[in-house]
C-alpha cells in the first residue's frame, strides 16, 4: 500500500463503522424473543396452575397487534415520532406475547404428558415431542408470530415501518382464527414425533410469516403506484362475495335456503369434551344481514365498475357511500352472529330437517360399515336422525369454535372493506407518506425472494421427512402440492420481474396471488381436501 495510507486507518475505522448504531435497531426483536424465552423458562421452573396461560398470552398478543396497527395507521396519515415509537413497541409487545404463548404452550404440553407417563413409571420422551407444531392452532400461533417477527425485523429500517400497518392486522386475524379453532392440547399422532417436525413446521411458519409481509408490501406497492382505491374495493368485494357464497355450505344465496345462515353444532360427550356434529343449526337474523351485505357488495362492484370504466364521478361518490354502508352491514352480521352463537338456546329447534338423511348416515356409520349404511333407505336414515334429535336434541350447542374458517373469512372480508375505506381517505396524502416506489419494490423483491427460498426449504424438509417416515419424498399429497403451487407462483413472481415489459405491477399481482395460495394451502387443504396433512 502506498505511503499515504499508513496514517489513515486510525481515522478511518470509527468513521466508517456505524454498525453499533444499527444493532440497536434490532433491539425490539431481541427483547421480544429473549423475553418470551425467559417467560417459558419461568413457566418450566416456577410455573404451574397459576402461571399465565398460553391462551391469555395469545389474547394479549392479539390486543397488542391491534393497538400497534392503529398506531402504525395513524402514523401514516399524521406522521409523528411518538406514534411511530408507540407502534413499534406495541408490535414488540405483541410478538413477545405471541411467542411467549407458543413457548408456554410447549411447557404445558410437556407437563400434561409428564403426568400420564411418569405416573406409570415410563421414561419421558424427548422434549421436542412437545413442540407446539401439532395442529392448526399451533401453526396459526406460529404463523402470526412469524409475521410479527418479520415485521419487527423489517422495522429496523425506519422507512419500512409502514409495513406494520397492514401486516399486523393480518397477524391479528390469524390469531382470531386460532382463537376460533381452539387451543385444546391433544395427543400427538405418533408419525409426527420426528425431529423433522420442528425443522419443517418451523420453516413453514417463518416463511408463511414473511409471505404475509410480502403480500402487505405488494398491496402497498399497488397503492403507491397509483392503483385507484375503487379498483381495490372491487377486488376486495369480489373476495367478500366469494366468502358469502361459500360459507354455510353455500346456503345463504341458494334459492332453496335463501337468507339462511347455519352454524355447525356441538354436543357434550361423556368424557366432558364437546364433539362437533355434521349438523348445522340456522342462526336467526344472520342470513338476512349476509344477504344485505351481498347486495351491497354487488352494488359497490357495479358503481365502482361504472366509475372505473366511464370515469363517472357520481358513481364514485355513490360507491363510497355504499362501501361505508357495506362496512356497517358486515360489522352487524359478524356481531349478530357472535351474539346469537353465544346466547341462542334450544339449538335443536333450529336444525333444518333436510339434513336428517345425511346426519342419519353419519350416526349409523359410527357403528356399521359404510357399505351397509349406503344400502339403507332414506326413510330409515331420517328416522335414526329424528330419534337422535328427540333424545339428545336439547344437548346441542353452538360455539364460536364451530366454524373457525367461516368466521375468520367473514372477519377478513370485513377487514378488507375497512382497509379500502381507510385507504380511500386522503389517498394522496397516504401515497406521499409512503417511501419511494423503488424502495417498496426492493422490499417486495427481498421478502418475495426470502419467501421463495423459505418455501423451497419447506418443500425440501417436508420431502426429506416424508422419505424418512413413509419412504417417498414426493407423493402429490394436497398439502405438499399446495405449497408447491405457491412456490411456483413465487418463482413466477421472481421471473416476471426480469421479463421485459412485465416489470412493475404484474410482479405485485403475482405476490398477492401467491400469498392467497399460501392461505389456501394453510386452511383450505386442512378443511376441504383429504390427505396426509389433515391434522394440520
Amino acid at each position: 500500500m502506498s505511503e499515504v495510507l499508513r496514517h489513515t486507518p486510525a481515522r478511518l475505522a470509527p468513521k466508517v463503522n456505524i454498525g453499533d448504531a444499527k444493532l440497536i435497531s434490532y433491539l425490539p426483536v431481541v427483547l421480544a424473543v429473549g423475553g418470551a424465552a425467559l417467560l417459558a423458562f419461568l413457566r418450566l421452573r416456577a410455573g404451574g396452575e397459576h402461571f399465565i396461560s398460553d391462551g391469555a398470552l395469545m389474547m394479549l398478543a392479539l390486543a397488542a397487534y391491534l393497538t400497534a396497527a392503529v398506531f402504525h395507521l395513524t402514523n401514516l396519515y399524521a406522521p409523528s415520532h411518538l406514534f411511530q415509537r408507540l407502534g413499534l413497541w406495541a408490535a414488540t409487545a405483541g410478538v413477545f406475547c405471541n411467542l411467549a404463548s407458543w413457548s408456554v404452550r410447549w411447557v404445558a404440553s410437556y407437563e400434561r404428558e409428564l403426568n400420564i407417563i411418569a405416573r406409570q413409571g415410563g421414561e419421558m420422551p424427548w422434549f421436542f415431542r412437545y413442540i407446539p407444531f401439532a395442529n392448526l392452532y399451533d401453526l396459526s400461533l406460529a404463523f402470526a408470530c412469524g409475521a410479527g417477527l418479520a415485521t419487527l425485523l423489517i422495522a429496523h429500517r425506519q422507512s419500512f415501518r409502514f409495513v406494520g400497518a397492514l401486516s399486523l392486522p393480518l397477524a391479528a386475524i390469524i390469531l382470531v382464527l386460532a382463537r376460533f379453532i381452539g387451543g385444546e392440547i391433544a395427543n400427538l399422532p405418533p408419525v409426527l414425533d420426528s425431529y423433522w417436525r420442528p425443522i419443517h413446521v418451523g420453516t413453514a411458519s417463518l416463511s408463511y410469516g414473511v409471505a404475509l409481509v410480502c403480500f402487505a408490501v405488494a398491496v402497498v406497492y399497488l397503492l403507491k403506484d397509483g392503483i385507484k382505491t375503487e379498483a381495490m374495493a372491487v377486488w376486495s368485494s369480489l373476495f367478500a362475495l366469494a366468502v358469502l357464497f361459500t360459507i354455510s355450505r353455500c346456503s345463504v344465496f341458494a334459492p332453496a335456503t335463501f337468507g339462511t345462515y347455519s352454524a355447525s353444532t356441538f354436543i357434550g360427550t361423556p368424557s366432558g369434551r364437546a364433539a362437533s356434529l355434521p349438523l348445522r343449526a340456522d342462526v336467526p337474523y344472520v342470513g338476512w344481514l349476509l344477504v344485505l351485505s351481498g347486495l351491497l357488495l354487488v352494488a359497490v362492484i357495479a358503481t365502482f365498475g361504472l366509475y372505473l370504466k366511464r370515469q363517472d364521478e357520481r358513481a364514485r361518490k355513490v360507491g363510497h357511500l355504499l362501501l361505508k354502508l357495506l362496512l356497517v352491514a358486515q360489522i352487524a352480521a359478524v356481531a349478530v352472529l357472535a351474539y346469537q352463537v353465544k346466547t341462542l338456546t334450544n339449538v335443536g329447534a333450529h336444525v333444518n330437517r333436510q339434513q336428517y338423511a345425511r346426519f342419519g348416515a353419519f350416526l349409523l356409520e359410527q357403528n356399521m360399515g359404510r357399505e351397509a349404511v349406503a344400502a339403507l333407505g332414506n326413510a330409515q336414515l331420517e328416522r335414526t336422525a329424528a330419534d337422535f334429535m328427540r333424545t339428545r336434541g336439547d344437548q346441542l350447542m353452538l360455539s364460536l369454535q364451530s366454524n373457525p374458517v367461516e368466521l375468520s373469512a367473514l372477519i377478513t372480508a370485513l377487514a378488507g372493506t375497512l382497509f379500502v375505506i381507510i385507504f380511500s381517505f386522503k389517498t394522496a396524502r397516504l401515497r406521499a407518506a409512503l417511501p419511494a416506489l423503488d424502495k417498496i419494490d426492493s422490499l417486495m423483491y427481498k421478502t418475495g425472494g426470502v419467501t421463495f427460498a423459505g418455501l423451497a426449504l419447506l418443500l425440501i424438509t417436508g420431502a426429506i421427512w416424508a422419505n424418512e417416515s413413509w419412504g417417498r419424498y414426493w407423493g402429490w399429497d394436497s398439502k405438499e402440492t399446495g405449497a408447491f403451487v405457491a412456490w411456483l407462483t413465487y418463482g413466477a413472481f421472481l421471473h416476471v420481474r426480469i421479463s421485459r415489459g412485465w416489470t412493475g405491477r404484474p410482479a405485485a399481482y403475482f405476490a398477492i396471488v401467491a400469498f392467497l395460495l399460501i392461505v389456501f394451502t394453510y386452511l383450505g387443504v386442512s378443511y376441504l381436501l383429504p390427505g396426509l396433512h389433515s391434522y394440520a
Partner: protein
Amino acid sequence: MTAITKHQSRQLPRATAAQPAPRAASIITGTMDLLSSVRFGVLLLVLLALASIVGMVVMQVNVEGFDKYYAELSPATRLLFGTLNFFDIYHSWYFNFLLLVLSLNIILSSIDHFPKAWTFIGRRKLDASAHWLRGQEQHAELTLAAASAREVAERISAIARTLRLRARVTEKGGATFVAAERGAWNRLGAYAVHVALLVIFVGGFMTAQFGHTGQMMLEPGATRAEMSETRFDLDKPTQSTVALPFAVECTDIQQKLLDKNGPTSPMNTLDWSTAIRVKDPVRGETSAIVRLNRPFDYRGYRFFQASFIPDGKARTVTLAVMPEQGGAAETVTIKRDETVTLADGTRIKFADFYSDFVLSGAGAASQSEEYNNPAALVMISRPTGAAAKGYAFPASAAATGPMVGRPVAGYRIQLADFEKVGAAHILSVQKDPGANVVYLGFVLLSATLVGVFFFSHQRVWARIEPQGAGRFTVLLGGNTNRSRVAFEDRFKRLTAALNEQFEVQQS
C-alpha cells in the same frame, strides 16, 4: 397469457427477418427463441400451477376414499375427468410434457443468459464514463483536495476495503478509476439454482422409472421374501407382488403405549418397533429393528413402519402359576409363541391371546379389538408327559364363564399382566435409486438459494479527474443486483467517509 403469445408471435418474424435462412431453420430459431424466453418460462410455471391445483381439487386415484368419491360423481363428470386424466393428473402425459418443456426452458434460457452473467466475473468493468456513472441508481459527485489522483484513488480503495468491497485502481484516458465490488459470484447463483432443480428433476425421473414401493405384513415368526405393490386403475386397485433378493423374518413386534391402560390406537402410541432378521443368500444374516420414523436400510432397500393390524394381542404375558394341590405360586413372563420351564420341569407355552375372549361354537375367539376380556391360551406339558391346553384370565376377570379359573394339567393359572401389541405390523419397503440424486439436488438447492437471496453483487466505481491546483473531481456511481437498500447504506457510508477524510468543497 395472451400477451405472451402475442409477444412471441411478434418475435418470430423478427427472427426470420434478421437471418434470411431457409423456412425450416426459421421455425427452429423461432421455437428456440420461444423455449428460451423467460416469459415462456413464467407461462409454464403458471400452467404447471394450474394443473397442480386441478390435482388438488379433484381427488387422485391413490388417495384413500377415492372409490367413494368416484362412486358419487355423475357419469358425465367421470367421463370428462377420466378423458382429461384428471384423476391421475400428475402421471398424465401432458403433465410430464409440461415438466419436460420446463426443463428445456430452464436449460435454454440459462444458456442464453449465462454469457452475460459470466462477463461480471470474466471481464470486470474497471472504468466508466461520467455520463454512465451519473445514470447509476446510486451516484455522487465530490471535489477533493489531495496531492495526486493516485492518493485519492488509494484512499477510496482503503475506505472501500473497510466496507468489505474489493477495489482495483486503473488509469485510462487521463482519468484514474477505482472499481470496487463484492459478491460477483452472486451473478451465477441463479444458474446454480437451475442446475439444482434439474438435478432434482433427474432424480424424480429415476424414481419414477426404477423405483418400487411395496408393503410387507409381518407377524412374529413369519418370513417373507416379496412385497406387494398397489397400482390404481381408477377405482380398481390391483395388487402385484415383487420378489426381493432376500427373505425377511420377523422375530418380535412391540408397541410402546403412552398410557399403558389405554387402547392400542395410534393416538395412544409412542412408537412401534419390528425386530427383523434379513436372510440374504449373498450377505448372510442381519438383524435390525425398524421403528417409526427410523427406517432400516439394506442393500438399497429401506424398511419403514407403515401401519399395523390392530387385533388385540399381547407381546408378553406374565402368569401366576399355582399347583392345584397347593404350594408356592410361581410367576413367569413368556413371550409370544415361546416356552418357559418351571422349577419342577413343567413347560408352559404362550400360544395365543384373545383381547375380548368369547367361547363360541367354533371355539375360542375374540369378539373385538379391545381388551375387554383378555385371556391367554397356554399349552402345558408336564415332565410326566401329561399335556393340556387352557386359558389364563386375570384375577379380577370381568368375565365369568366355564373357562375361568378351571385348572389346566394340575395348575391354576392367572394372567397377572400382559404387554399390549397388535397382531402384525405392516412395513413399507422402498427401493429408490433416485432418492440420493434428489437429496443431492436438495442440498444444492438449499445452498444456492441462500447464496442467491442473502447475498448480492454490489459494485462502485470512482472516476477521478484533476481540476488543477491540487483539486480533483470524484464522480462516484454504483449498482447492485439485489438488496438495494443495504447497498444504498453502503454507498452513503462510502461517500460520508470520503467527506470526512478530505477537505471537502462540494461542487
